[in-house]
Protein backbone atom coordinates (compact mmCIF):
# COMPACT_ATOMS: atom_id res chain seq x y z
CA UNK A 1 0.00 0.00 0.00
CA UNK A 2 1.42 3.31 -1.00
CA UNK A 3 1.05 6.67 0.64
CA UNK A 4 -2.32 8.34 0.86
CA UNK A 5 -1.24 11.24 -1.32
CA UNK A 6 0.22 9.13 -4.08
CA UNK A 7 -1.46 10.38 -7.22
CA UNK A 8 -1.48 8.43 -10.44
CA UNK A 9 -4.09 9.85 -12.77
CA UNK A 10 -3.75 7.25 -15.51
CA UNK A 11 -3.96 4.42 -12.99
CA UNK A 12 -7.13 5.89 -11.54
CA UNK A 13 -8.75 6.28 -14.96
CA UNK A 14 -7.95 2.63 -15.72
CA UNK A 15 -9.50 1.53 -12.41
CA UNK A 16 -12.60 3.63 -13.09
CA UNK A 17 -13.12 2.47 -16.66
CA UNK A 18 -12.53 -1.21 -15.90
CA UNK A 19 -14.96 -1.06 -12.98
CA UNK A 20 -17.65 0.51 -15.17
CA UNK A 21 -17.27 -1.50 -18.35
CA UNK A 22 -15.06 -4.58 -18.12
CA UNK A 23 -15.77 -5.88 -14.62
CA UNK A 24 -19.32 -4.60 -14.54
CA UNK A 25 -20.71 -5.52 -11.14
CA UNK A 26 -24.07 -6.74 -12.30
CA UNK A 27 -23.43 -8.22 -15.71
CA UNK A 28 -19.96 -9.73 -15.30
CA UNK A 29 -19.51 -10.29 -11.57
CA UNK A 30 -23.07 -11.19 -10.57
CA UNK A 31 -23.34 -8.79 -7.63
CA UNK A 32 -26.56 -6.99 -6.76
CA UNK A 33 -28.65 -9.28 -8.95
CA UNK A 34 -31.71 -9.22 -6.65
CA UNK A 35 -32.12 -5.45 -6.94
CA UNK A 36 -31.14 -5.56 -10.62
CA UNK A 37 -34.04 -7.95 -11.34
CA UNK A 38 -36.43 -6.36 -8.86
CA UNK A 39 -36.11 -2.63 -9.45
CA UNK A 40 -35.22 -2.39 -13.15
CA UNK A 41 -38.83 -2.42 -14.36
CA UNK A 42 -39.14 1.35 -14.63
CA UNK A 43 -36.56 3.95 -15.59
CA UNK A 44 -37.21 6.35 -12.69
CA UNK A 45 -36.98 3.58 -10.10
CA UNK A 46 -33.85 2.20 -11.74
CA UNK A 47 -32.23 5.66 -11.64
CA UNK A 48 -33.22 6.31 -8.02
CA UNK A 49 -31.96 2.95 -6.85
CA UNK A 50 -28.65 3.31 -8.72
CA UNK A 51 -27.98 6.80 -7.37
CA UNK A 52 -28.63 5.52 -3.86
CA UNK A 53 -26.26 2.59 -4.49
CA UNK A 54 -23.48 4.91 -5.76
CA UNK A 55 -23.95 7.12 -2.69
CA UNK A 56 -23.88 4.23 -0.21
CA UNK A 57 -20.92 2.54 -1.94
CA UNK A 58 -18.81 5.71 -1.66
CA UNK A 59 -19.89 6.19 1.94
CA UNK A 60 -19.22 2.56 2.87
CA UNK A 61 -15.76 2.67 1.31
CA UNK A 62 -14.90 5.95 3.03
CA UNK A 63 -15.73 4.32 6.37
CA UNK A 64 -14.54 0.73 5.93
CA UNK A 65 -11.13 1.58 4.44
CA UNK A 66 -9.88 3.41 7.57
CA UNK A 67 -11.40 0.66 9.75
CA UNK A 68 -9.45 -2.01 7.87
CA UNK A 69 -6.09 -0.21 7.88
CA UNK A 70 -6.16 1.68 11.19
CA UNK A 71 -8.14 -0.75 13.36
CA UNK A 72 -8.27 -4.30 12.05
CA UNK A 73 -4.77 -4.76 10.63
CA UNK A 74 -2.63 -3.05 13.31
CA UNK A 75 -4.38 -5.08 16.02
CA UNK A 76 -4.47 -8.39 14.10
CA UNK A 77 -8.25 -8.48 13.96
CA UNK A 78 -8.53 -9.29 10.25
CA UNK A 79 -10.93 -12.17 10.95
CA UNK A 80 -13.54 -9.70 12.24
CA UNK A 81 -13.77 -8.08 8.79
CA UNK A 82 -17.07 -9.65 7.68
CA UNK A 83 -18.88 -9.00 10.97
CA UNK A 84 -17.61 -5.45 11.35
CA UNK A 85 -18.15 -4.37 7.74
CA UNK A 86 -21.76 -5.55 7.56
CA UNK A 87 -22.59 -3.92 10.90
CA UNK A 88 -20.93 -0.64 9.99
CA UNK A 89 -22.68 -0.53 6.64
CA UNK A 90 -26.08 -1.38 8.15
CA UNK A 91 -25.71 1.23 10.91
CA UNK A 92 -24.42 3.81 8.46
CA UNK A 93 -27.37 3.40 6.10
CA UNK A 94 -29.81 3.80 9.01
CA UNK A 95 -27.98 6.90 10.23
CA UNK A 96 -27.83 8.49 6.81
CA UNK A 97 -31.52 7.82 6.32
CA UNK A 98 -32.35 9.64 9.56
CA UNK A 99 -30.01 12.56 8.83
CA UNK A 100 -31.14 13.27 5.28
CA UNK A 101 -34.78 12.84 6.28
CA UNK A 102 -34.33 15.67 8.76
CA UNK A 103 -31.99 18.02 6.94
CA UNK A 104 -32.26 17.38 3.19
CA UNK A 105 -35.91 16.40 2.59
CA UNK A 106 -35.56 16.85 -1.18
CA UNK A 107 -32.83 14.23 -1.34
CA UNK A 108 -34.82 12.00 1.00
CA UNK A 109 -37.88 12.06 -1.21
CA UNK A 110 -35.71 11.07 -4.17
CA UNK A 111 -33.57 8.35 -2.57
CA UNK A 112 -35.12 7.61 0.84
CA UNK A 113 -37.28 4.69 -0.26
CA UNK A 114 -34.28 2.90 -1.71
CA UNK A 115 -31.92 3.20 1.24
CA UNK A 116 -33.28 0.34 3.41
CA UNK A 117 -33.19 -1.94 0.35
CA UNK A 118 -29.45 -1.39 0.09
CA UNK A 119 -28.37 -2.65 3.51
CA UNK A 120 -28.65 -6.23 2.34
CA UNK A 121 -27.47 -5.50 -1.20
CA UNK A 122 -24.43 -7.69 -1.71
CA UNK A 123 -22.82 -5.20 -4.10
CA UNK A 124 -22.11 -2.74 -1.28
CA UNK A 125 -20.45 -5.24 1.05
CA UNK A 126 -18.61 -6.68 -1.95
CA UNK A 127 -17.10 -3.35 -2.99
CA UNK A 128 -15.81 -2.79 0.56
CA UNK A 129 -14.20 -6.24 0.70
CA UNK A 130 -12.85 -6.15 -2.87
CA UNK A 131 -11.14 -2.80 -2.24
CA UNK A 132 -9.28 -4.40 0.64
CA UNK A 133 -8.53 -7.60 -1.30
CA UNK A 134 -7.05 -5.58 -4.18
CA UNK A 135 -4.88 -3.58 -1.72
CA UNK A 136 -5.99 -0.26 -3.24
CA UNK A 137 -4.95 2.94 -1.44
CA UNK A 138 -7.69 5.27 -0.22
CA UNK A 139 -8.05 7.30 -3.41
CA UNK A 140 -8.04 4.23 -5.65
CA UNK A 141 -10.64 2.59 -3.38
CA UNK A 142 -12.93 5.58 -3.72
CA UNK A 143 -12.46 5.64 -7.49
CA UNK A 144 -13.13 1.90 -7.70
CA UNK A 145 -16.33 2.34 -5.66
CA UNK A 146 -17.45 5.19 -7.88
CA UNK A 147 -16.75 3.08 -10.97
CA UNK A 148 -18.58 0.08 -9.53
CA UNK A 149 -21.56 2.26 -8.69
CA UNK A 150 -21.55 3.83 -12.15
CA UNK A 151 -21.36 0.36 -13.68
CA UNK A 152 -24.43 -0.65 -11.67
CA UNK A 153 -26.16 2.54 -12.84
CA UNK A 154 -25.30 1.82 -16.48
CA UNK A 155 -26.55 -1.77 -16.28
CA UNK A 156 -29.78 -0.74 -14.53
CA UNK A 157 -30.61 2.07 -16.95
CA UNK A 158 -29.78 0.04 -20.07
CA UNK A 159 -31.74 -2.91 -18.81
CA UNK A 160 -34.82 -0.90 -17.82
CA UNK A 161 -35.01 0.12 -21.49
CA UNK A 162 -34.79 -3.52 -22.58
CA UNK A 163 -37.51 -4.50 -20.12
CA UNK A 164 -39.85 -1.72 -21.26
CA UNK A 165 -39.63 -3.18 -24.77
CA UNK A 166 -40.13 -6.72 -23.51
CA UNK A 167 -43.45 -5.89 -21.87
CA UNK A 168 -45.03 -5.48 -25.30
CA UNK A 169 -43.76 -8.82 -26.56
CA UNK A 170 -45.67 -12.08 -26.35
CA UNK A 171 -43.80 -14.49 -24.13
CA UNK A 172 -44.59 -18.21 -23.80
CA UNK A 173 -46.44 -18.82 -20.51
CA UNK A 174 -43.59 -20.70 -18.83
CA UNK A 175 -41.10 -17.97 -19.69
CA UNK A 176 -43.18 -15.06 -18.42
CA UNK A 177 -41.64 -12.60 -15.94
CA UNK A 178 -38.41 -13.85 -14.47
CA UNK A 179 -37.13 -16.43 -17.00
CA UNK A 180 -37.41 -14.11 -20.00
CA UNK A 181 -35.87 -11.29 -17.96
CA UNK A 182 -32.87 -13.49 -17.17
CA UNK A 183 -32.46 -14.43 -20.82
CA UNK A 184 -32.58 -10.75 -21.80
CA UNK A 185 -29.95 -10.07 -19.12
CA UNK A 186 -27.83 -12.77 -20.70
CA UNK A 187 -27.95 -10.99 -24.06
CA UNK A 188 -27.16 -7.59 -22.51
CA UNK A 189 -24.26 -9.27 -20.72
CA UNK A 190 -22.87 -10.53 -24.05
CA UNK A 191 -22.88 -6.91 -25.25
CA UNK A 192 -20.53 -6.01 -22.41
CA UNK A 193 -17.94 -8.49 -23.73
CA UNK A 194 -17.32 -5.94 -26.45
CA UNK A 195 -15.64 -3.70 -23.88
CA UNK A 196 -13.12 -6.33 -22.81
CA UNK A 197 -10.35 -5.21 -25.14
CA UNK A 198 -11.13 -1.51 -25.05
CA UNK A 199 -9.29 -0.67 -21.85
CA UNK A 200 -6.09 -2.53 -22.79
CA UNK A 201 -6.02 -0.90 -26.21
CA UNK A 202 -6.76 2.60 -24.91
CA UNK A 203 -4.09 2.69 -22.25
CA UNK A 204 -1.52 0.27 -23.64
Amino acid at each position, binding site marked *: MESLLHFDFKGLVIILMSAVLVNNYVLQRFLGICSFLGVSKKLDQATGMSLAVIFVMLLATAVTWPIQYYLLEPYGLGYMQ*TVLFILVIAALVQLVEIVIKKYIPALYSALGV*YLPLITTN*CAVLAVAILNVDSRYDFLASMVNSLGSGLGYFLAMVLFSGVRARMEDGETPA*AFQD*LPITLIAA*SIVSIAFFGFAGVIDKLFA
Partner: protein
Amino acid sequence: MNRLKVLTNGLIRENPVLVLILGTCPSLAVSTQASNAIGMGLAATVVLLCSNVAISALRKIIPDNVRIPCYIVLIAGFVTVVQMLVKAYAPAIDEQLGIFLPLIVVNCIILGRAEMFANKNTVFASALDGIGMGLGFTLALLAMASIREVFGSGTWFGLAVPGLAGHKVSILVLAPGGFFVYGVLIALVNKLTKGKAGKNAEQGCAGCPAAAACGRLGAADEAKEREA
Protein backbone atom coordinates in the same frame (compact mmCIF):
# COMPACT_ATOMS: atom_id res chain seq x y z
CA MET B 1 -46.10 -30.11 11.74
CA ASN B 2 -45.01 -33.19 9.85
CA ARG B 3 -41.25 -33.33 10.34
CA LEU B 4 -40.45 -35.15 7.14
CA LYS B 5 -42.41 -32.54 5.22
CA VAL B 6 -40.40 -29.72 6.80
CA LEU B 7 -37.21 -31.41 5.71
CA THR B 8 -38.27 -32.17 2.14
CA ASN B 9 -40.05 -28.84 1.53
CA GLY B 10 -36.78 -27.07 0.78
CA LEU B 11 -35.54 -29.77 -1.56
CA ILE B 12 -38.14 -29.49 -4.31
CA ARG B 13 -41.51 -27.94 -3.52
CA GLU B 14 -40.06 -24.75 -2.04
CA ASN B 15 -36.59 -24.93 -3.54
CA PRO B 16 -34.96 -21.64 -2.50
CA VAL B 17 -33.21 -20.99 -5.80
CA LEU B 18 -35.61 -22.29 -8.43
CA VAL B 19 -39.00 -21.75 -6.76
CA LEU B 20 -38.58 -19.04 -4.10
CA ILE B 21 -35.97 -17.20 -6.25
CA LEU B 22 -33.66 -16.36 -3.34
CA GLY B 23 -29.88 -16.19 -3.35
CA THR B 24 -29.57 -15.40 -7.04
CA CYS B 25 -26.11 -13.81 -6.88
CA PRO B 26 -24.16 -16.82 -5.57
CA SER B 27 -26.23 -19.19 -7.71
CA LEU B 28 -25.16 -17.40 -10.86
CA ALA B 29 -21.60 -16.74 -9.80
CA VAL B 30 -20.35 -20.06 -8.44
CA SER B 31 -22.21 -22.42 -10.74
CA THR B 32 -19.37 -22.60 -13.27
CA GLN B 33 -18.04 -25.89 -11.87
CA ALA B 34 -19.81 -28.70 -10.06
CA SER B 35 -17.16 -28.81 -7.32
CA ASN B 36 -17.62 -25.08 -6.60
CA ALA B 37 -21.37 -25.60 -6.39
CA ILE B 38 -20.95 -28.34 -3.78
CA GLY B 39 -18.50 -26.21 -1.77
CA MET B 40 -20.72 -23.14 -1.79
CA GLY B 41 -23.85 -25.20 -1.11
CA LEU B 42 -22.36 -26.97 1.90
CA ALA B 43 -20.88 -23.74 3.33
CA ALA B 44 -24.28 -22.06 3.08
CA THR B 45 -26.00 -25.14 4.55
CA VAL B 46 -23.78 -25.07 7.63
CA VAL B 47 -24.43 -21.34 8.15
CA LEU B 48 -28.16 -21.82 7.58
CA LEU B 49 -28.37 -24.73 10.03
CA CYS B 50 -26.46 -22.85 12.75
CA SER B 51 -28.31 -19.57 12.26
CA ASN B 52 -31.73 -21.27 12.18
CA VAL B 53 -30.99 -23.13 15.41
CA ALA B 54 -29.59 -20.06 17.18
CA ILE B 55 -32.37 -17.74 16.05
CA SER B 56 -35.06 -20.25 16.94
CA ALA B 57 -33.53 -20.78 20.37
CA LEU B 58 -33.38 -17.02 20.99
CA ARG B 59 -36.74 -16.19 19.39
CA LYS B 60 -38.39 -15.30 22.73
CA ILE B 61 -35.44 -13.17 23.90
CA ILE B 62 -34.75 -11.04 20.81
CA PRO B 63 -37.02 -7.94 20.83
CA ASP B 64 -39.11 -7.67 17.69
CA ASN B 65 -37.94 -4.13 16.79
CA VAL B 66 -34.26 -4.96 16.53
CA ARG B 67 -34.57 -8.51 15.24
CA ILE B 68 -33.00 -7.88 11.80
CA PRO B 69 -29.74 -6.40 13.20
CA CYS B 70 -29.61 -9.26 15.72
CA TYR B 71 -30.04 -11.84 12.96
CA ILE B 72 -27.32 -10.16 10.88
CA VAL B 73 -24.86 -10.26 13.79
CA LEU B 74 -25.58 -13.95 14.46
CA ILE B 75 -25.31 -14.86 10.78
CA ALA B 76 -22.10 -12.83 10.32
CA GLY B 77 -20.58 -14.70 13.27
CA PHE B 78 -21.35 -18.10 11.77
CA VAL B 79 -20.13 -16.98 8.34
CA THR B 80 -16.80 -15.95 9.89
CA VAL B 81 -16.47 -19.39 11.50
CA VAL B 82 -17.21 -21.15 8.20
CA GLN B 83 -14.82 -18.79 6.37
CA MET B 84 -11.98 -19.71 8.74
CA LEU B 85 -12.74 -23.45 8.49
CA VAL B 86 -12.80 -23.37 4.69
CA LYS B 87 -9.56 -21.34 4.60
CA ALA B 88 -7.88 -23.87 6.87
CA TYR B 89 -9.14 -27.18 5.46
CA ALA B 90 -10.11 -26.46 1.83
CA PRO B 91 -7.94 -23.58 0.58
CA ALA B 92 -8.64 -24.54 -3.05
CA ILE B 93 -12.39 -24.03 -2.56
CA ASP B 94 -11.69 -20.75 -0.73
CA GLU B 95 -9.74 -19.54 -3.75
CA GLN B 96 -12.55 -20.50 -6.14
CA LEU B 97 -15.41 -19.00 -4.14
CA GLY B 98 -13.47 -15.83 -3.32
CA ILE B 99 -15.71 -12.92 -2.43
CA PHE B 100 -18.85 -15.05 -2.40
CA LEU B 101 -17.85 -16.83 0.80
CA PRO B 102 -18.08 -13.71 3.04
CA LEU B 103 -21.10 -12.64 1.01
CA ILE B 104 -23.12 -15.54 2.50
CA VAL B 105 -23.92 -12.91 5.17
CA VAL B 106 -26.18 -11.04 2.79
CA ASN B 107 -27.58 -14.17 1.13
CA CYS B 108 -31.35 -13.70 1.26
CA ILE B 109 -31.95 -17.42 1.79
CA ILE B 110 -30.49 -17.25 5.29
CA LEU B 111 -32.20 -14.04 6.43
CA GLY B 112 -35.33 -15.19 4.64
CA ARG B 113 -35.53 -18.47 6.55
CA ALA B 114 -34.84 -16.64 9.81
CA GLU B 115 -37.75 -14.32 9.12
CA MET B 116 -40.15 -16.87 7.64
CA PHE B 117 -39.44 -19.99 9.67
CA ALA B 118 -36.93 -19.92 12.54
CA ASN B 119 -38.53 -17.10 14.53
CA LYS B 120 -41.89 -18.92 14.62
CA ASN B 121 -40.90 -22.56 15.06
CA THR B 122 -39.16 -24.88 17.53
CA VAL B 123 -35.42 -25.46 17.49
CA PHE B 124 -35.76 -28.99 16.09
CA ALA B 125 -38.09 -27.98 13.26
CA SER B 126 -35.83 -25.02 12.42
CA ALA B 127 -32.81 -27.30 12.25
CA LEU B 128 -34.66 -29.60 9.83
CA ASP B 129 -35.77 -26.60 7.78
CA GLY B 130 -32.18 -25.33 7.68
CA ILE B 131 -30.88 -28.68 6.44
CA GLY B 132 -33.66 -29.04 3.88
CA MET B 133 -33.29 -25.52 2.50
CA GLY B 134 -29.50 -25.80 2.50
CA LEU B 135 -29.59 -29.06 0.59
CA GLY B 136 -32.17 -27.59 -1.80
CA PHE B 137 -29.76 -24.71 -2.45
CA THR B 138 -26.91 -27.19 -3.00
CA LEU B 139 -29.04 -29.33 -5.32
CA ALA B 140 -30.12 -26.35 -7.45
CA LEU B 141 -26.53 -25.10 -7.63
CA LEU B 142 -25.33 -28.57 -8.60
CA ALA B 143 -27.97 -28.82 -11.35
CA MET B 144 -26.98 -25.45 -12.78
CA ALA B 145 -23.27 -26.09 -12.43
CA SER B 146 -23.56 -29.53 -14.04
CA ILE B 147 -25.25 -28.11 -17.12
CA ARG B 148 -22.73 -25.29 -17.37
CA GLU B 149 -19.66 -27.44 -16.73
CA VAL B 150 -20.63 -30.43 -18.91
CA PHE B 151 -21.60 -28.36 -21.95
CA GLY B 152 -19.33 -25.38 -21.28
CA SER B 153 -16.01 -27.07 -20.50
CA GLY B 154 -16.71 -30.70 -21.43
CA THR B 155 -15.95 -31.92 -17.89
CA TRP B 156 -17.90 -32.90 -14.77
CA PHE B 157 -16.24 -32.49 -11.37
CA GLY B 158 -13.06 -31.96 -13.38
CA LEU B 159 -13.32 -35.32 -15.20
CA ALA B 160 -13.56 -35.21 -18.98
CA VAL B 161 -16.95 -36.20 -20.41
CA PRO B 162 -16.35 -38.50 -23.41
CA GLY B 163 -17.41 -37.03 -26.74
CA LEU B 164 -17.88 -33.47 -25.50
CA ALA B 165 -14.29 -32.30 -25.21
CA GLY B 166 -14.18 -31.15 -28.84
CA HIS B 167 -17.56 -29.43 -28.73
CA LYS B 168 -17.36 -26.95 -25.88
CA VAL B 169 -19.87 -24.12 -25.71
CA SER B 170 -17.52 -21.85 -23.77
CA ILE B 171 -20.05 -19.06 -23.36
CA LEU B 172 -22.01 -21.20 -20.89
CA VAL B 173 -19.17 -20.88 -18.37
CA LEU B 174 -19.06 -17.11 -18.81
CA ALA B 175 -21.50 -14.59 -17.39
CA PRO B 176 -24.16 -14.69 -20.16
CA GLY B 177 -24.38 -18.47 -19.89
CA GLY B 178 -25.15 -18.16 -16.19
CA PHE B 179 -28.13 -15.90 -16.79
CA PHE B 180 -29.32 -18.08 -19.66
CA VAL B 181 -29.15 -21.44 -17.86
CA TYR B 182 -30.82 -19.98 -14.76
CA GLY B 183 -33.63 -18.49 -16.87
CA VAL B 184 -34.24 -21.76 -18.72
CA LEU B 185 -34.23 -23.79 -15.47
CA ILE B 186 -36.81 -21.49 -13.85
CA ALA B 187 -38.94 -21.71 -16.99
CA LEU B 188 -38.70 -25.51 -16.81
CA VAL B 189 -39.77 -25.54 -13.15
CA ASN B 190 -42.58 -23.14 -14.09
CA LYS B 191 -43.75 -25.53 -16.79
CA LEU B 192 -43.59 -28.58 -14.52
CA THR B 193 -45.40 -26.88 -11.62
CA LYS B 194 -47.85 -25.05 -13.92
CA GLY B 195 -46.88 -21.54 -12.84
CA LYS B 196 -46.62 -22.31 -9.14
CA ALA B 197 -43.06 -20.97 -9.04
CA GLY B 198 -44.16 -17.38 -9.53
CA LYS B 199 -46.74 -17.63 -6.77
CA ASN B 200 -44.17 -18.97 -4.34
CA ALA B 201 -41.77 -16.20 -5.27
CA GLU B 202 -44.24 -13.79 -3.66
CA GLN B 203 -43.98 -15.80 -0.45
CA GLY B 204 -40.22 -15.54 -0.76
CA CYS B 205 -40.63 -11.76 -0.88
CA ALA B 206 -42.48 -11.81 2.44
CA GLY B 207 -39.42 -13.32 4.06
CA CYS B 208 -37.02 -10.76 2.66
CA PRO B 209 -35.83 -8.24 5.25
CA ALA B 210 -36.26 -5.49 2.67
CA ALA B 211 -39.90 -6.44 2.03
CA ALA B 212 -41.30 -3.44 3.90
CA ALA B 213 -39.20 -0.98 1.90
CA CYS B 214 -40.01 -2.83 -1.31
CA GLY B 215 -43.70 -2.55 -0.44
CA ARG B 216 -43.28 1.18 0.06
CA LEU B 217 -41.71 1.33 -3.38
CA GLY B 218 -44.76 -0.42 -4.86
CA ALA B 219 -47.13 1.87 -2.94
CA ALA B 220 -45.30 5.01 -4.11
CA ASP B 221 -45.57 3.71 -7.64
CA GLU B 222 -49.30 3.10 -7.40
CA ALA B 223 -49.87 6.57 -5.95
CA LYS B 224 -48.00 8.08 -8.88
CA GLU B 225 -50.10 6.11 -11.34
CA ARG B 226 -53.31 7.24 -9.68
CA GLU B 227 -52.21 10.87 -9.98
CA ALA B 228 -51.46 10.47 -13.66
